C-alpha cells in the first residue's frame, strides 16, 4: 500500500513536471501575443501578458494574405485528410485479409517506402512532370498514405473477430457492404485516431507546399508562419553587406503562432470522445 502511495506521488511529480515543461512555452507565446513588444524584449513577459495590447492582433488579422493562406490550410487539410483516410482504410482492410493472394508483396511495397525514398529531386521532377505543381493535388496526393498509420489500421482490422464478417457474408453482404456496414462502424476509434494523426500532420506540414507551390496565394499558413519566424536568416549568415534581414517583431510572431495553433487544438476535445468509446469497446468484448 505504501509502495502504491509512493508510486502515486512520484508519478504525480513527474507528470506535473511534464505538464509544466509542455504548457509553459505555449502559455508564454499566448502571453506574448497580448503584450507590447517592449515588454517582450525587456524579458518581462512569462505567462501573464504585460502592457496588454490588441493592436498586433488587429494588424495580423488585417493582412489579406494571412487569411488567404489560412483558408488554403483548411482546404488542404480537409481534402488531404479525406483522401488519406479513404485510401488508408481501403489498403489496410485489404491487407488485413490473410487469405489474400500476394498479400506479402502488397505489404512489402508499402513497407519498402518506409526505408527507401526516391529522393527530393526525383520526387520534384515526378510531381512536376505530372503537371501537379501549383495545384492542390501536389499537396494532398504525395504522402497520401502514411505507412505507419497503415500498419496500425491493418493490425486493428486483423484484431476484429473473423466470425463477424462471416456472419455478414451469410446474411448476404458483399465485400464493400461488410466494410461499410460492419467493419467501419466497429472501427470508429481507430478511424478517429487516424483522422487526428492525418489532420494534425497536414495542418502542420509546410514542406510539400513549399516544394511544389510557386505562388504566395496558394501557400498554406504554415509557410507564411515559417517565413515570418525563420525569416531571411541566410542573409545574415552569408554576407555582412546586406541589410535585407528580416526583423519581424516578437509580438507579431506570437500572434501568428497563436492564430495558427488554435483551430487544430480545438479539434482534440471532439476526437477525444472516440478515444474513450474505443477503450470501452475493447473492455466489453474482452
Amino acid at each position, binding site marked *: 500500500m505504501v509502495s502504491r502511495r509512493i508510486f502515486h506521488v512520484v508519478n504525480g511529480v513527474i507528470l506535473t513536471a511534464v505538464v509544466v515543461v509542455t504548457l509553459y512555452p505555449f502559455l508564454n507565446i499566448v502571453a506574448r501575443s497580448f503584450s507590447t513588444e517592449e515588454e517582450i524584449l525587456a524579458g518581462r513577459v512569462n505567462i501573464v501578458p504585460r502592457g496588454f495590447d490588441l493592436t498586433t492582433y488587429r494588424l495580423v488579422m488585417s493582412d489579406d494574405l494571412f487569411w488567404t493562406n489560412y483558408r488554403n490550410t483548411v482546404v488542404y487539410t480537409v481534402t488531404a485528410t479525406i483522401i488519406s483516410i479513404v485510401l488508408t482504410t481501403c489498403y489496410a482492410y485489404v491487407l488485413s485479409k490473410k487469405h489474400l493472394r500476394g498479400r506479402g508483396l502488397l505489404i512489402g511495397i508499402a513497407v519498402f517506402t518506409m526505408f527507401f525514398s526516391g529522393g527530393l529531386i526525383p520526387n520534384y521532377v515526378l510531381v512536376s512532370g505530372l503537371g501537379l505543381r501549383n495545384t492542390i493535388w501536389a499537396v494532398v496526393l504525395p504522402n497520401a498514405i502514411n505507412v505507419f498509420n497503415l500498419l496500425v489500421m491493418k493490425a486493428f482490422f486483423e484484431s476484429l473477430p473473423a466470425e463477424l464478417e462471416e456472419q455478414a457474408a451469410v446474411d448476404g453482404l458483399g465485400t464493400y457492404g461488410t466494410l461499410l456496414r460492419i467493419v467501419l462502424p466497429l472501427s470508429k476509434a481507430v478511424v478517429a485516431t487516424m483522422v487526428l494523426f492525418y489532420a494534425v500532420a497536414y495542418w502542420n506540414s509546410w514542406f510539400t507546399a513549399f516544394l511544389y507551390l510557386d505562388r*504566395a496565394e496558394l*501557400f498554406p499558413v504554415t509557410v507564411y508562419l515559417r517565413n515570418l519566424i*525563420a525569416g531571411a536568416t541566410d542573409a545574415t549568415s552569408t554576407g*555582412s*553587406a546586406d541589410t535585407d534581414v*528580416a526583423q519581424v517583431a516578437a509580438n507579431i510572431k506570437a500572434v501568428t503562432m497563436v492564430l495558427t495553433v488554435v483551430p487544430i487544438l480545438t479539434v482534440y476535445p471532439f476526437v477525444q470522445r472516440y478515444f474513450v468509446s474505443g477503450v470501452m469497446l475493447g473492455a466489453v468484448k474482452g
Partner: protein
Amino acid sequence: MKRIAASIVALSLLTACGSSPESTDLEENRAGAMESYTIGAQFKATAPITFDMLYSDHPNYAIKNDWLFWQELTKRTNITITPSVVPASDYNQKRSLVVSAGDAPFIIPKVYPPQETPFVASGAVLPVSDYLDLMPHFKDKIEKWKLGAQIDTLRQEDGKFYVLPGLHEEVWQDYSLAVRTDVLQELGLAAPRTWDELHTTLKAMKAKYPDSYPFSDRFAIPDPGGNLLNMIALAYGTTGGWGYHNETWDGQNFVLTGAMPQYKAMLTFLHTLVAEGLLDPESFTQTDDQAKAKLAAGKTLVISTNAQNLVNDYRPLLKDGATIAKIPFLAGPAGEVKGYTRLESGIMISAKARESKNFVALMQFVDWLFYSDAGQEFAKWGVEGVTYSKDATGTRILNPDVDFVGLNPSGTKHLQKDFGFSGGNFAYGGTTELLNSTFSTEEQAFQQGMSTKTSIPVPPPAPLTDEEREQATLWETPLKDYVTQQSLRFILGQRDLAEWDAYVAELNAKNGPAYIELVNKARTRFADKNK
C-alpha cells in the same frame, strides 16, 4: 567500318563546333531584342515578352501582384515577370532543388558567391561572362569603377564566371558598433576610434557600472561573433566571423588564417576583454533577442549594429533619455582599413535561357534593370511623381504619403510593402550617390568616415578544379569548425593562449597546410593560364 567511325568522329566534331562558341551566333535568339541597345538607352522589348524568375519573398514586404513595380516595369520595358515565389526562409533550398531538377526559371536572383559553384559542373547555369557584349551597362560599370580584379575573384576554373553580382561604386560597410552616447557623455569620453580606445572606454564604463558587462553582442547565430569577429579580424589583418575563410591573402601568398600571428593577437585582445569582465561571454552564444533585452534593460551599453538595427531595434527600446549611436568603424594594428569587396549577391541565368528565342532581349533586360542608372533608380525609388520627386538640386525626396526606413514616419503607404520598390530581389548595388540617397544624415556621416579608409587588397582568384574541390570540401569544414571552436575557447579563457603552438600543430594535423598548398597551387595555375 573505318568510314563509319570516321564519320562519327567528324559528326561529333561538328556538333562540338556548333555548341562551343555559343556567344557568336545569336541570330536565332534575337526575338524582341533591341537593334541598338547602348549605354544610356532605355530598354524596351520590340514585342511583349514574359520571363519567369525565382523570387525570394521577404516576410516584411510580402509579394503583391498589384504592385506599381510590376505595372511600371512592363510599361517601360514591355517585359512581364512571372515570379516563382519562394519564402525567404528556405530560398536556398528551393533554388538548389529547381536548378538541380533542370526546372529553374530564367532569372535566379539573390545568389551569394560562391553559392553558384556547385551548379557550375552540371552546366545548369549560364557562363554569363561569355555574353557581356549584350550588357553594355554592366561592362561600363566594371570599367568605370575599376572592378576587374574583383570580378576575377568570381571566375571558376574554366576562367568564366556564372553569376552577375551587384556592383558598388565604393566599399559599403554597414555594420559597426552602437554605443550608448549618453553614458559616454556622462563619463566625459569621446567615441572610440580604435579597438584599444574601445578597451579604455569599456574599462571606464565598467568602473562606473561594476555589476554588468558593458559590451554584450548579438549576431551569434549561426556564426558565433559573426559581426564582432568580422570587424576586429579586419582591423588585425586577418579574417573572422562572417568574413572567415580558412585562407587569408597576406599580399604574397594565401596563409592559414587560424595559425596567423595576427589571428592570435586578435584572440588575445578579445580574451583580455572577457577576462576583465568587459565583454559578456554569452556574446558568442545568445540570441539576438537576448542581447537586445540586455541593452533595453540598461545592463549593457555596447552592441553590434547596422543602420537599420539602430533605428528599428535599439532606439525604440531605450527609455529615460538614453541615447545610442553608431560609432566609426574601429581601426586596429592593420591601420585605417576597410574590406575590399564592392560586389554584392547577384543573379544567375539558367543555362536553358540560351536556347530561348528571346535570349538577347533577356540579357538586355537584365542589363537595364540591374545595371543601368535609370533601372537602379527605378528599382530603388520607384516612379517620379508617384513615390518620390526631385528638388532643384536633384535630391530625391519621398512623396509625403510614402514611408521608407523611417524617412517619412507619417506616411500612410510604404515604399516596399505597398509599391514593391527597394525590394531585395531587384534593388542592389549602384552609385554611392544612389546608395546614400536613402540614408539619414547620421548614416551619411558614418559613410563619410568610411570613405577615408583604405581598402585591403583584393585576393587573387584561385579557382579549384572539380577534383580539387572535392578534396578541399573534405578539409575545409572540419578546419573551419575547429578554428571556430578553439577561438571561442581561447577568447573565453577555457584554453590558455600559452597552448598556441599545440593548437597550431592540431591545425596542421587537420590538413591545414595541405589545404593552403592546394589553394596556392590553384592561384599560380590560374595566373599562368590567364597571363
